[in-house]
């Protein structure tokens, strides 16, 4: 469902961040993405959620060639992708509830239609008592959990998570990993960038490692 062929990426006039990256993700698979800081993990994910175009190479998502897809086709593809941003990107002026409900609202659903689901999900990530709080009054870990909830609320076909456990304690990390594994069992493809060696040990999944712009896969 996702295919990269000889993808290269550079920012402006800088050095190449990604070089000849090729890989394929099968539906329902689970992958970790690791690599040192600044290796290009976030950049790779940005290519996947279409906020960046590659300098060269071929990307295909759900069978669509990204190079030839018109702008108007992007929203439909993006609705099948859930993203947890490394810097959360919650909207400051919306409450936790509204932030998490945003992907549904954008799809034209009305509040009564999604209210129950959203609250249930917020309880799952332990934010049941912070539903009406604004992001700046949440602790770092709480913001991260809200970001995760927003990424999964639309039941995406593929979930991209960038360092989703950097701000939570080990116990909560394990719990969030369980959420991802649960989603994966339900058919969602998962690609999770992380530095947390503890997590890598807890789940047996294929690993991508980025180093000096090259991607290697084990196994």
């Amino acid at each position, binding site marked *: 469902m996702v295919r990269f062929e000889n993808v290269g990426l550079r920012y402006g006039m800088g050095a190449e961040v990604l070089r000849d990256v090729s890989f394929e993700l099968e539906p329902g698979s689970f992958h970790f993405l690791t690599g040192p800081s600044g290796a290009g993990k976030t950049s790779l994910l940005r290519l996947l959620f279409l906020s960046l175009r590659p300098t060269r190479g071929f990307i295909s998502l759900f069978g669509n060639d990204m190079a030839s897809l018109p702008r108007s086709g992007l929203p439909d593809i*993006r*609705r099948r992708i859930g993203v947890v941003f490394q810097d959360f990107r919650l909207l400051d002026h919306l409450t936790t509830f509204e932030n998490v409900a945003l992907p549904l609202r954008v799809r034209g659903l009305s509040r009564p239609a999604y209210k129950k689901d959203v609250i249930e999900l917020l309880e799952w990530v332990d934010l049941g008592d912070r539903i009406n709080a604004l992001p700046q009054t949440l602790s770092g870990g709480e913001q991260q959990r809200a970001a995760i909830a927003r990424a999964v609320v639309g039941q995406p076909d593929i979930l991209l998570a960038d360092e989703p456990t950097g701000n939570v304690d080990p116990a909560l990390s394990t719990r969030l990993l369980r959420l991802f594994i649960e989603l994966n069992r339900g058919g969602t493809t998962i690609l999770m960038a992380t530095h947390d060696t503890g997590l890598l040990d807890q789940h047996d999944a294929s690993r991508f490692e980025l180093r000096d712009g090259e991607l290697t896969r084990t196994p």
Partner: protein
Amino acid sequence: MITQYLKDLVPELFGEVDPSHSTRRTSQIMPDSGVSGRTLTIVMTIMCYLACMALGALIIINKSIDNWTSDISGQVTVQIRPVSGSDVEAEIVKAVAIIEAASGITAINVMTADDARALLEPWLGAGEILQELPIPRLIEVTIDRENPPDLSAIAERLGEEVQGATLDTHRRWQDQLVRAAGTLQLIGYSVLALISVTTIAIIVFATRAAMYSNRQIVEVLHLVGARDNFIAVQVQRHFLRLGLKGGLIGALVGAVSFTAVNMLATDGASGLAQNIDAIASGTYNFSIANYLLLLLIPLVATLISLITARLAIMRILGGVL
């Protein structure tokens, strides 16, 4: 409306602003600040106020032109100079007969010799000479405007048959006034056009500023799958409100200003105001219909800001991935 406007501008006046309050209410995806911010609302109000003044002035000018063209050509004057050897009273009777014979005349008023003398008094002083003086006599002729008589034919007959008679159609006066008013009219329309263009420019800048300062929100919306139209609706909603608010307040204050000037012009002892009044020849009072015409301002302001913002937004979004 006004209270809401003031409340938005000076929240302190209306008690403490409770930040925790917004927690429950906030539901707009694009926050207010930075889009229809205070400065922009004030600017919009000023522009609409100016537009209102210009439109009001135009209404008065147009009405005045109407009045002048109709009133003055609605009345002509026949002057009969006493020519040596002629009997003025007899000539007057002849002239009246000729005028009455023509169609399209609604009234004829022969000024008495005393009336004519009163007109001359400032020039000659009230002395015995005036009594002795052979003064020209005037006949005021009111014309049916719907069905005007053939004035040149009347003038010709008067010239032929009545000694010392001339017909004054006031056309020179009228032409000059209408020309002056035409200049004012042109200025008024230019000012209106200028205001519209400036407003459009301001809205374009403001839209771009709003899109820029909310670019992170726009990006997040895109990334969770929002279509351009959805985003545009969120932003342009603010400009709809902006145009409506600025337009209504501006037009309202404008209407109040007009009424105030009006009262100054009719009540005040000032020579100037009376002059203005004289120029507008009596029908200066703004009618209800005219006030309603001022409602065009908020309507046009809203349309301008909505359409301009929409176009600007779609153009910006088209350039984003």
